């Protein structure tokens, strides 16, 4: 399994096996694993630092501020300064806390993000392993983070933390269902569960063939990574900081690492599945490429991250019951609709040629727009005209006395 395909693991392993004597080939296996783990943990740290900096700067500009700009050129060293601050901060553990659970929670939180990194293709032939159930694995491993949230919330022995944990667990479990369902359409089209294979299967980005699936996955993924407008887990105006209210210092930093790591990795999965991954969207495969595929991948992930930051800067938070209702009443049927439509299409046109493909794109787009508008009309409130709820009354000024 892990040695399949032209993976990074296989290449590095091959290099070490060539160096080592025959009897020690298992050592090559271990060394390769350690090297890759080291590289990926640190790569995640660096990317998280970059994204934190990026988010603070972009959010600042959205809000007519400058954002951090004092440490280093353009404030680019701000994440390092933050890290230093976190390291030197006192690590406070509440007296009533369940110490073991309290300490283990950040570690459990960070595992999914790291584990997901192993299956994502970062570029042409740049992946650790081609897991043949990669998409399922990526979704399944995120569910572990809900466990981390629960452990943190419960272990803190704090009411706000417990509330946040309850909200988080309920929300994360619910949103896994539409998230998985929205991917089934892609599986039908691509005919593979492998994240490496799904990139090769995209003659045109699946966002065009699966606009509804993309929308559902984007929303569900936003919820899975606790980003606005689904950030009820750590709603700062309501429950202070949610599950990590009591955390400080490095443990808090690990939570941030886990959250932003999950954000990056989820964006990477989104790009891989719907935005044709590392492929150049303008020049088809096989033609001479100017930019390396890894750069295209980074650009697309950056685009998705910018979208998430933009949404965070604009949209208020939903309430817990609205969020749950949204998942089950709107996203779930939408994902089912997408699945049915895609299944019919795949049955009718198993191997579409170019013009058939574009007809399918048009049909799917129409279905997506129709579904969104229809659901909006059925479930949304009537569009409110602000002037209807407030009237201007002209009064003659009078002296009462």
């Amino acid at each position, binding site marked *: 399994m892990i040695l399949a395909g032209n993976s990074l693991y296989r290449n590095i392993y091959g290099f070490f096996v060539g160096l080592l004597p025959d009897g020690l080939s298992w050592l090559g296996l271990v060394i390769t694993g350690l090297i890759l783990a080291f590289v990926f943990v640190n790569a995640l740290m660096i990317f998280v630092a970059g994204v934190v900096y990026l988010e603070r700067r972009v*959010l600042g500009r*959205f*809000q*007519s*501020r400058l954002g951090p700009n004092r440490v280093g050129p353009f404030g680019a060293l701000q994440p390092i300064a933050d890290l230093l601050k976190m390291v030197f901060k006192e690590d406070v553990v509440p007296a*009533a806390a369940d110490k073991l659970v309290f300490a283990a929670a950040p570690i459990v939180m960070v595992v999914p993000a790291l584990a997901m990194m192993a299956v994502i293709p970062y570029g042409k032939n740049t992946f650790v392993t081609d897991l043949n159930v990669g998409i399922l694995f990526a979704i399944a491993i995120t569910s572990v983070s809900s466990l981390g949230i629960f452990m943190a919330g419960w272990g803190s*022995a704090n*009411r*706000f933390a*417990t*509330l946040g944990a*309850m*909200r988080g667990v309920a929300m994360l479990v619910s949103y896994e269902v539409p998230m998985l369902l929205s991917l089934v359409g892609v599986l039908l089209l691509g005919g593979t569960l492998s994240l490496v294979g799904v990139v090769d299967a995209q003659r045109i980005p699946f966002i065009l063939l699966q606009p509804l699936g993309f929308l559902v996955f984007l929303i569900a993924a936003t919820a899975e990574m606790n980003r*606005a*407008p689904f*950030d*009820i887990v750590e*709603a*700062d*105006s*309501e*429950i*202070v900081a949610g599950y990590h209210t009591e955390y400080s210092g490095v443990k808090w930093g690990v939570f941030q690492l886990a959250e932003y790591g999950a954000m990056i990795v989820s964006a990477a999965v989104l790009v891989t599945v719907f935005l044709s991954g590392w492929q150049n969207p303008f020049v088809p495969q096989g033609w001479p490429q100017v930019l390396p595929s890894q750069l295209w991948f980074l650009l697309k992930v950056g685009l998705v991250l910018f979208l998430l930051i933009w949404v*965070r*800067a*604009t*949209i*208020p*938070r*939903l*309430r*817990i*019951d*609205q969020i749950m209702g949204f998942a089950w009443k709107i996203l779930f049927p939408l994902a089912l609709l997408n699945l049915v439509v895609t299944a019919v299409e795949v049955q009718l046109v198993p191997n579409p040629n170019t013009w058939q493909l574009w007809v399918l794109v048009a049909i799917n787009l129409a279905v997506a727009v129709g579904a969104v508008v229809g659901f909006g009309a059925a479930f*949304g*409130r009537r*569009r*409110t005209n*602000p002037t*209807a*709820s*407030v*009237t*201007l*009354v*002209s*009064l*003659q*000024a*009078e*002296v*009462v*006395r």
Partner: protein
Amino acid sequence: MTNLQQHPEPPAELEAEPVVVNLGPQHPSTHGVFRLRVIMDGETIQDVEPIFGYLHRGTEKLAEERSYTQVVTLTDRLDYTAAMSNNLAYVLAVEKLAGIEVPERGMYLRVIAAELQRIAAHLIFVGFSLDELGAFHTPLLYGFRERERILDLFEMLCGARITVSYMRPGGVHQDAPVDFWPALDRFLADMPHYLDELQGLIAENEIVVARTKGLAVLLAAKAINCSMSGPVLRASGVAWDLRKQDPYDVYGRMQFDIPVGANGDTYDRLLVRLYEARQSLRIVAQARKEIPGGPVRTQAPFFIRPPVGEAYGHVEAPKGELGFYLVSQGGISPYRCKIRSPSFINLTALKEMLVGYKVADLVVIFGSIDVNMGEVDR
């Protein structure tokens, strides 16, 4: 959680134990040091008990130790987002008590200052409301950006931005500088666009509507019974505005409308304030056009000795009816000063509005009343 809660004996039947959560006094959304003891079943609020007094500074008692003019500086600190309105309410009471006439120009300047202050206070309200709804500070910072222009105008008027102490019994302490008027004109030209932008950001946003529409409906009768005032009362459908009902200064000459809500829900309370800000702009523009020349202040002595008696001066402050009740025994300082602060009175209906809603709604509903702890605790 079980080891935190001391229950002497388990309840007879199996039911969820209510959870007691103390929101505040240090909580991001309690607008200062306010404490709400919330009894919840899951996320649903069963009972609330407001506890306040953390910011009590004894303003009323301090006023008895100060001369009438000196008390002006104390009023700045009541509702620190609306110092001008507080000043105005107090000096009106003193003028009534001592029978001091105010020159026309002084009255116009006071109206301009008070209405600018209303816009500033409403901008803060809208920003913080959206913050409580969970928008990541963006509307708040937009609101603050535009409020900054108003504070710049205040700095021109009186040299201070927040604690203005601008008004004196008998007028305002000083005429506006010459560069104030062009700056005011620029502000009046720009502000409607800013308000449009802010309204575009929030008024039709589906999430804002879903979060606030139909939330914590306060019926008109209930609002009147709870002696509510200000935008909260008007959002409930009662066209009650002291600027119309008991016009002080030159409000009688101003043409403006009163925004009145149709449903009395949180959404209306949000919108009424946005619309009021536009009406305030109308008033400022009129006052700026009509303002006569002449003195701005009747030269009252610094140590005013009003005749024995009592007076009540009230204004329509951004948060509701702000009144000062002063008793004089002929001395240089009030014998008794009682402040009717709108924030405090508006808290009366809090419990009725909160029970049955979720924690996430709690901060939104509490925010929609727009209380200021400086005024509640005095």
